[in-house]
């Protein structure tokens, strides 16, 4: 399932390419963007199928409800902009029109998380998953590499209903083997097997977690690494089985520790397998400008920082 080579590629390019591929097969797919098509890479679709691409200008709220109307008109609608503007700015439109009417709109938001980098806090969506997770009938998916982005976009195109898919600005190292890995929309996946600890992650922090797990291995700590690309609905089984065995759970995400994957894990565990939990993410604060790697380091999301945090956590009784 895991890839041997670790080529680095852009999930946004991958999204754009996939849209073009799906657009060729399915004439019903339409795409909307709000003046960021070069950043989100929906420009590829725009070039291939100009009549099915709608640039809504710098007007995200109008774009969301226009997307809703197109979906009501029978289209499979992909709508993209930065995660910050796709969610916070359009929360009402997404809740009251897209989700309440259960329309077939796929919000594919790029630039999720702290790794937006130099643009700083105004552009760093750290609450988007929390916003989206709280709306009834919204599915929330955070893929971890380009192989998975591609799978998830295809799944979205073939599955009816509202969906929020978050991809980062940064390039991602390949995690999954394209031949043997298939995105599973209805379960978490166990990537490594351990007995001492459960680590849950998704998105761009999954790679860091896998590296941290190797470091932990060297000091004799064996971890179950669980990948949860689907944050909502939350599929409990894999987590429950692991936590019942290890009794200690760490969640790592490029998001606020409030309302994201960490919260979803705690909600699940408190019900099915009460455990000690450590949530690693952005701690109820705004981000700031910086280089992508610097920011990951500063907010404790690199492999080494995650490792250090876990070593401390393992002493907690």
């Amino acid at each position, binding site marked *: 399932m895991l890839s041997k080579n670790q080529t680095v590629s852009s999930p946004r390019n991958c999204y754009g390419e996939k849209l073009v591929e799906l657009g060729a097969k399915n004439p019903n797919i339409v795409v909307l963007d709000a003046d960021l098509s070069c950043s989100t890479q929906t420009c590829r679709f725009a070039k291939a199928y100009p009549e099915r691409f709608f640039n*809504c200008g710098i007007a995200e709220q109008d774009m969301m409800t226009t997307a809703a*109307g197109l979906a009501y008109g029978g289209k499979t609608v992909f709508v993209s902009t930065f995660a910050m503007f796709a969610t916070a700015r359009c929360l009402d439109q997404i809740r*009251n029109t897209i989700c309440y009417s259960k329309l077939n709109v796929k919000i594919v938001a790029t630039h999720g998380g702290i790794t937006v980098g130099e643009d700083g806090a105004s552009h760093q969506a750290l609450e988007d998953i929390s916003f989206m997770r709280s709306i009834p009938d919204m599915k929330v998916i955070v893929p971890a590499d380009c192989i998975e982005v591609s799978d998830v976009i295809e799944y979205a195109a073939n599955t009816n209903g509202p969906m929020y898919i978050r991809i980062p600005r940064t390039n991602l190292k390949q995690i999954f083997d394209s031949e043997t890995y298939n995105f599973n929309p209805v379960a978490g996946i166990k990537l490594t097997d351990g007995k001492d600890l459960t680590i849950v992650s998704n998105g761009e922090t999954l790679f860091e977690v896998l590296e941290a797990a190797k470091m932990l291995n060297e000091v004799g700590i064996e971890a179950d690494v669980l990948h949860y690309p689907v944050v909502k609905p939350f599929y409990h089984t894999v987590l429950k089985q692991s936590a019942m065995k290890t009794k200690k759970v760490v969640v790592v995400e490029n998001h606020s520790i409030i309302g994201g994957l960490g919260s979803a894990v705690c909600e699940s565990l408190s019900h099915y397998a009460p455990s000690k939990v450590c949530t690693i993410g952005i701690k109820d604060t705004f981000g700031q400008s910086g280089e992508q790697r610097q920011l990951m380091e500063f907010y404790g999301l690199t492999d080494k920082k995650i490792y250090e945090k876990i070593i401390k956590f393992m002493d907690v009784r």
Partner: protein
Amino acid sequence: MEAFTRAVRKDCLKMIHNAKSGHPGGACSCVDILAVLYKKVLNVPLEWDKAVDFNQRDRFILSKGHASTALYATLAHCGYFSKDLLSGFRKLGSKLQGHPSSRTKLPGIEVSTGSLGQGLSIGVGIALALRLDKINSKVFVLMGDGEMQEGSVWESLMNANAKKLENLVVIIDRNNLQIDGLVDDVKTLEPLDEKLRAFGFDVYEIDGHNFEQIESVCLEAKNSNRLTAIIANTIKGKGVSFMENNVSWHGKAPNDEELRKALEELDVK
């Protein structure tokens, strides 16, 4: 038409009285527009969802979702569903939610509305989809004038023009009142006609209680291949003397005595 709208207004008030809440003012102001649309203008099959040519229907979006009683009563009186359902308005488990919900699958309701400023944009999206599918239907969106203070409305107006939509008709129920008072006092829209023209619309101004005017202009808009906005001058609470132009009836239910008086007035007319 006169008798039809009288019956619809009476049902609006009965529903609101029965639910002990609702929005009589903005419902009564748009009853005449809805009556003409459903009886004379829109091609919307009665066998909702089951008609062979269902996709060919015109689409109607009530962006001012708080006027739900006017739409519900109009649809019931036209025969889209049984009038018996009206008494369930705002009650637990009812298909007639406080604001229109597409979830309850009430025949005639296209999409959920209620949060103001979104219906026009939904209409733009539907119009784009119809154009892509080469379906020659029209999309009619009925908005409140107060609602036009929402910024997203102007994003949608801009987009409708930018996308050169020929199949969209916007009707503004301009009753000049909103919860906090006169639209002109709260945040004026003037000059509304010039603004709409500047946004690329053909603008008509009509008396929103004159059946002939509503019909002729709506039919002209339906047959036109240009973006059209119709400013319908109306009276909030129209048809009941003590509700007319009285903003306190925006979102208040009549008590037993008030209902009796109102129904009596509507009977006499």
